[in-house]
């Protein structure tokens, strides 16, 4: 494997997180990178969410796809992964890929070129995206890792999923701070949503019940400059 200098400096030992024996970087921009596999995972892009709303009369700005792709392009340029896994809900709805503007399609295809690209099926986009390369899969096992859109109720060591759009909240000195986060307990990891218009759900919400070993739960909250690892006991609901 050949790391360029800039890539190597991105990864400090201290930033590495262990998931079922694999080492991963929780990037503060919301992607997960496995240096040993040269694999980049990103979840819940929700491309074309803007136009999906517009169809129903809410004319929110049509720039979300562009914004999301631009950020994705930046992380891909930094890590130069061999494999990219888009963990489902890549498009906000089944017609999303079709509606996508030509220029965005071109941008996406340029990113995909020269690497293995997997579209994991999500609940918003169960079918393969129209006219785009890449392989659509229900789930994907690589090494000790299992990539799927929705976390399974059964405990699966090494499961990497999305779907729930985790965020975490802390209260310090009477002030509340809420941020998107990676949520992991050493065994499984739920990724934050990456899309520009994606909302989030607190990791202490009922929807997460039974998914984590609470005593080892850590929320890796996304900061402006870095990730903040906050232990589950410090987190607040809501």
């Amino acid at each position, binding site marked *: 494997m050949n790391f360029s200098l800039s890539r190597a400096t991105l990864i400090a030992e201290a930033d590495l997180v262990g998931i079922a024996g694999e080492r991963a970087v929780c990037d503060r921009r919301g992607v997960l990178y496995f240096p040993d596999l040269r694999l980049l995972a990103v979840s819940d892009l929700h491309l074309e969410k803007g136009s999906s709303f517009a169809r129903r009369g809410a004319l*929110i*700005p049509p720039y979300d796809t562009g914004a999301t792709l631009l950020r994705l392009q930046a992380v891909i340029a930094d890590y130069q992964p061999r494999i990219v896994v888009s963990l489902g809900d890549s498009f906000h709805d089944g017609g999303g890929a079709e509606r996508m503007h030509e220029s965005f399609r071109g941008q996406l295809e340029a990113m995909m070129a020269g690497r293995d690209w997997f579209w994991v099926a999500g609940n918003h986009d169960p079918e393969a995206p129209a006219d785009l390369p890449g392989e659509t899969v229900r789930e994907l096992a690589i090494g000790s890792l299992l990539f799927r859109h929705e976390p399974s109720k059964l405990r699966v060591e090494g499961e990497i999923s999305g779907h729930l759009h985790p965020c975490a909240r802390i209260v310090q000195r*009477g002030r*509340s701070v809420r941020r998107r986060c990676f949520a992991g307990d050493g065994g499984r990891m739920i990724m934050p949503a990456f899309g520009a218009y*994606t909302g989030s759900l607190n990791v202490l919400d009922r929807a997460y019940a039974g998914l984590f070993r609470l005593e080892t739960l*850590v929320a890796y909250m996304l900061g402006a400059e870095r990730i903040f690892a906050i232990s589950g006991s410090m987190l607040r609901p809501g």
Partner: protein
Amino acid sequence: MPPRYLLRVTEQPRLAEQNAAVLLPEPFVKWFGQKGWSPRAHQLELLAKAQSGQSVLLIAPTGAGKTLAGFLPSLTELASRPKRKPGQARRGIHTLYISPLKALAVDIERNLGKPVEEIGLPVTIETRTGDTPSHKRQRQKLAPPDILLTTPEQLALLIASNGAKRFFEDLRYVVLDELHSLVTSKRGHLLALGLARLRAFVPDLQTIGLSATVAEPDELRRWLVSQAAPGAMSELIVVTGGAKPEISILDSEERVPWAGHSARYATPEIYREIKRHKTTLLFVNTRSQAELLFQELWRVNEDTLPIALHHGSLDVAQRRRVEKAMGENALRAIVATSTLDLGIDWGDVDLVVHVGAPKGASRLAQRIGRANHRMDEPSKAILIPANRFEVLECRAALDANYLGAQDTPPLVNGGLDVLAQHVLGCACGAPFHTGALFDEVRTAAPYASLDRPTFDRVIDFVATGGYALRNYERYARIRQTKEGFWRVSNPAVAQQYRLNVGTIIEVPALNVRYVQAGSRGAASRGGRVLGKIEEAFLETLTHGDTFMFAGKILRFEGIRENECFVSNAPGSDAKVPYYGGGKFPLSTYLAEQVRAMLDDPQRWKKLPEQVADWLRFQADKSVLPKRDDLLIETFPRGNRYYMVAYPFEGRLAHQTLGMLLTRRLDRAGAKPVGFVATDYALAIWSLADMGWMFKNREPSLATLFDQDMLGDDLEAWFADSWLLKRTFRNCALISGLIEKRHPGKEKSGRQVTVSTDLIYDVLRSHEPDHILLQATRTDAATGLLDVSRLAEMLSRIRGRIMHKNLEQISPLAVPIMLEIGKMPVNGEADETLLMDAATLVEEAMGPEMTD
């Protein structure tokens, strides 16, 4: 006792009687005679002007009989209207009455119904508010009453419905109550646009505005009439006088605190006053002050006097109970916030106590008008300053009230978000032509200076979102026909519009519901709802925390969906003080008065001795600022260096100044750590010695306070300030970019379809000149940031900055220094808090935790 709008004959000038005979139809004269009353001169004057076809603004103090005056033209005209013959078409609405409060409309229905019945007028009066059942609304459309009492939102809905033109074609008068309070908000903008539409339906429509005293009556006069002829104004009638209120400032035997807002020290003295009077109305500035004062009063309420609490977050049923008890004179005291500000008559209040400084002279006058609702008897009021600066402020306000000074805010241009809402509403009612609607909109005073390109952009926004990337043509909400008319593209658009009409944005709030102590909800649903409380406050609570609400000390049990569960807390001390700072910023006028007072030791004689002493100490240890100067003190304390500035320009302007100065100090290498702003002062603390830096002109204070900070620094800070995001959310909701409610689904708070913060970020980076961002910046600059006031201040103090470098804290600096730590510092330090939390974890668990 006669109702408040009438006076005994003996108190009236004879001229009025003569006029009355000319202007009033026979049954009215007879009725006045039977009652032994006589109409007032201004009531007849208004009638005469209205009868000659004029629109009129009536400015009068509370208790002057404004309401009857406003309706006399309608009632007399309706009295002499020929009876409808059988088979003749139904007549439409004759008079539309619009008030800012639902409760006021209901109140008027009652007050107006009585004389109508007694005179035997063939006049039907009905209300139409959000509470009106839909069958009644339907019926009102088919068989309209003669007089319809309603709110601005209902008018917008009526305009957006099919057949609006027919519904209003017989309209003669629009009576606008409490106009002074309506015009200053976005509700006023929407209402002005609605009036313009009504005038397009009925060109000779007359308006009658009823208002409390304002600083610039001409602004309201223009507001009332079409601006097709630029600058046109309504007629004006001003009723002056009324008895001079007896206002005093509590000269407490206790020590007046340096800082804080609770006025807890004065509780026993307030209680003594309550005992001495029949009914006392206690005004405070914020809901949390209301809760605190209520608790404190009950703590000393040995005689268990009936003392009640009234504020906007309490459950409606609870509020109605209090209002009813008050009307029946069953209460001895009511602790209230601004929900009781407006002109509702609540029985015989003989004392108003104002706790905390009133923040504006006009506000004080209006609140005091609540007492003794008869114009010719003096109102009695006591001001209770909560801290020492408030003593100065109360004194200034008191002088102002005696002088009749007015400091109502100037009117601002109409919001573009409101215009967007109105444009869609118009399309829902009937197809419109761009040029015609543009001309119509410009007849509304707030939009008189609107230019055509901006209007075209608003239309474009309503149609397809107005984006440079023209992706949404196929999803257009309104479309232009071949003939050039804009019409709604499908019925769902109109349905959506109706659900989202209005400009009142509710802060995300949760129901507060009782459960059994220790339970987290599920099992014990169904306890009583006490009211609503903001999500933002609840977010700072942990299970088991106690706080005050609805006059109780409550224990926080948890949050479930949109409900906050609470139980009765044992003890009597709320652990979490529930305080959000002052609600209104200090008015410019009062600020100037306070500065003048500091500069004039002669005026200190009127101040309580302990406060005058404090100022003398200041003169001794440091210096007192001159009236037009800005005093800056610097001093070290602990391991920090402090700078305290005393602009007296209000909290908002100071907050903005604080944000901008810290940016500049940071660039200058002062390493600022934080700042805190009050209505009077601004304190910044840093790691480097700012006193030394200023003395050596590195940088000089003149450079630091240069007006150019309102250029790039302001723009840069605007970029991702949470304040801007909050403003954007309001604009997005009002303009209809996103929905408050969607058919079939109740959306609220965080569940709003897509977070507006995310939309803001995306839009700002891709289309920074989008019309909605333009609207947001304008709003923020006038409202939240008070940029114009800051600009005036910076220009006033050029060359007039006085720097005092001290060894230690000065007496004048004590109040603001005490606020440090009590007030959240600002919204930008989130990362620091995260860092703290992450560090705590590492300390407790060791670094392997993150491995």
